């Protein structure tokens, strides 16, 4: 995509890519293709593009994977639920224009942002998602990659108006939700080619889990990853730490935590309601 495209050819390229990725993502209900409105009076009015009706006869809806993005689930606070419902409306409106795919910490994404300091105005970055945080409109995710031997992490806001495209090149989960330990791991585990081609993934069934255990650089690390509060399963501790050090780390274990009733937050019923609401609104 280095050629200087006119807006028309860019739209055609977008359409082609969407059709090529058809098998990956069935739920392309809104395309980000704007129609040229040759208006005689004033600036062109925004007419929403016609929605392509995709009838998938191979799989039933029940077998599709139900995924609710974690930023829709409200935190456990004393806020009025009206605030969350209004925020959700804004999020759904944004999702109708920009397709935000399903991804987890450990998936490899390519993100295109508008950047005023670049010639062609667009800035593409490929990386592994190490963390998804934030609730509501301020949800963010961090992509990590090693460029020319230098590790680079960029924190993107999912609902920022500067986001143009989010593509999932490889959808997979890892053994942990938070992969911040990749900073202290060997750089080979964080390098990904910018020209990586998207890998086909299934939309039914479970997300593939990568059981990779990462080798670490020698200590000191940025955080003491062996301590039980981080609960990391994706590091090969047997190569870098002695059993005595592992036992010493267990001193910081808090065995009462799973029984702490004040920390209980059962989101199953909330999730179902929100999932139904989001999918109904996205279909409109």
């Amino acid at each position, binding site marked *: 995509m280095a050629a200087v495209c006119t807006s028309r050819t860019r739209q055609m390229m977008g359409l082609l890519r969407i059709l090529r990725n058809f098998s990956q993502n069935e739920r392309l209900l809104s395309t980000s293709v*704007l129609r040229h409105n040759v208006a005689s009076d004033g600036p062109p009015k*925004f007419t929403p593009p016609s929605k392509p009706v995709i009838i998938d006869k191979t799989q039933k809806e029940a077998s599709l994977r139900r995924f609710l993005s974690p930023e829709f689930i409200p935190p456990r*606070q*004393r*806020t*009025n639920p*009206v*605030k969350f419902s*209004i*925020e959700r409306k*804004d999020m759904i*409106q*944004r999702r*109708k*224009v*920009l397709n935000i795919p399903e991804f987890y910490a450990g998936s490899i994404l390519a993100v295109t942002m*508008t950047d*005023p300091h670049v010639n062609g*105005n667009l800035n593409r970055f490929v990386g592994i998602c190490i963390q998804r945080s934030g609730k*509501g*409109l*301020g949800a963010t995710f961090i992509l990590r990659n090693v460029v020319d031997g230098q590790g680079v992490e960029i924190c993107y*806001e999912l*609902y*920022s*108006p*500067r986001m*143009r495209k989010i593509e999932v090149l490889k959808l997979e989960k890892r053994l942990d939700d938070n992969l911040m330990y990749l900073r202290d791991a060997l750089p080979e585990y964080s390098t990904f080619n910018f020209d990586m081609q998207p890998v086909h993934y299934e939309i039914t069934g479970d997300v593939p889990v990568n059981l990779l255990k990462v080798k670490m650089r020698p200590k000191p690390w940025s955080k003491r990853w062996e301590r039980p509060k981080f609960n990391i399963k994706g590091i090969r501790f047997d190569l870098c730490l002695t059993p005595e050090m592992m036992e010493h780390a267990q001193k910081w274990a808090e065995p009462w935590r799973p029984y702490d009733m004040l920390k209980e937050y059962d989101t199953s019923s909330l999730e179902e309601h929100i999932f139904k609401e989001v999918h109904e609104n996205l279909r409109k």
Partner: protein
Amino acid sequence: RNNNTLLSCLGAPVIQCIRTHRTNTWWDEHLTEDNASFLKKVVTEEYKQQTTDKLNPLKDEPWPRHEWAEGSRRVGLVAVKLGMMPVWSKSGERHVVTMLQVQDCHVVKHLSKEEYNGRTAALIVGGKNISPFHRPEGYLEVFRNAGVPPKQKLTTFCVSDNAIIKPGTPLYAAHFCPGQYVDVTAKTIGKGFQGVMKRWGFKGQPASHGQTKTHRRPGSLGPGGDPAKVFKGKKMPGRMGNIYDTNHGLKVWRVNTKYNILYINGSVPGHRNCLVKVRDSILPTRLENNKNPPFPTFFADGDKELPEDLFDEDVFQFGQPMPE
């Protein structure tokens, strides 16, 4: 009352023991369960009736509405702080915004110039609806006169004479337009007894290099022998917070007319779900943005249907095509 009469005859100071018998009961102490639930139902129905009565201000002898003039002051609102949210401008800058919801805001009383302070008229405005059962009679009387359900918070707004409104009119979030500037007053979060570093922002002392038991202390209390005293108003540790504070010059980015929500730039004093007083900004540099507002207030008479969301020109709206 038992008076100690013997002692008073002797001329010694009279020690009077005043015996009081507490006659406070709570509202359903002497009621049966049926009566209590009936009362609750009746009260909710009454509130609904009262609010619907006041929805059309044109019906019952409204006061005359004047046009906005330079230098006239209009009423404000009482709102509930819901929470905070990010908002993006068309150039891509991210700002944080507080959401204030206007729940059941009614004008409750009008005080003329002579009654109030001799200079300006005043309007008392009430906020969220609450149950009448745990309030004293005197408090509920004001609301009965206005024909309005009892409110949790009452505030006075100094108002110019051309902006007075009849008691009982409801106030909505559309009273403020996007792009104007407001001042928000609320009770700050109480922090309890706090030291001088948190309360006044003192720098304290270094953590090491020989400091003996002195890391967060105020240090010197003032000059030496000449005044030989500590001046009044010296900043010292004490109770912090739980006082009324105002944030001036906050921009209104967006107004939601369906749920009556104002999106106000930056942060606002008070905790979540606290009641907050919002009024037009008095900062001289922001007077230009506050010109030609809905005067004296926004009346939902039905002839003008406002869209569900009103945005400022700078705000990036999510349904619109992306800029640049």
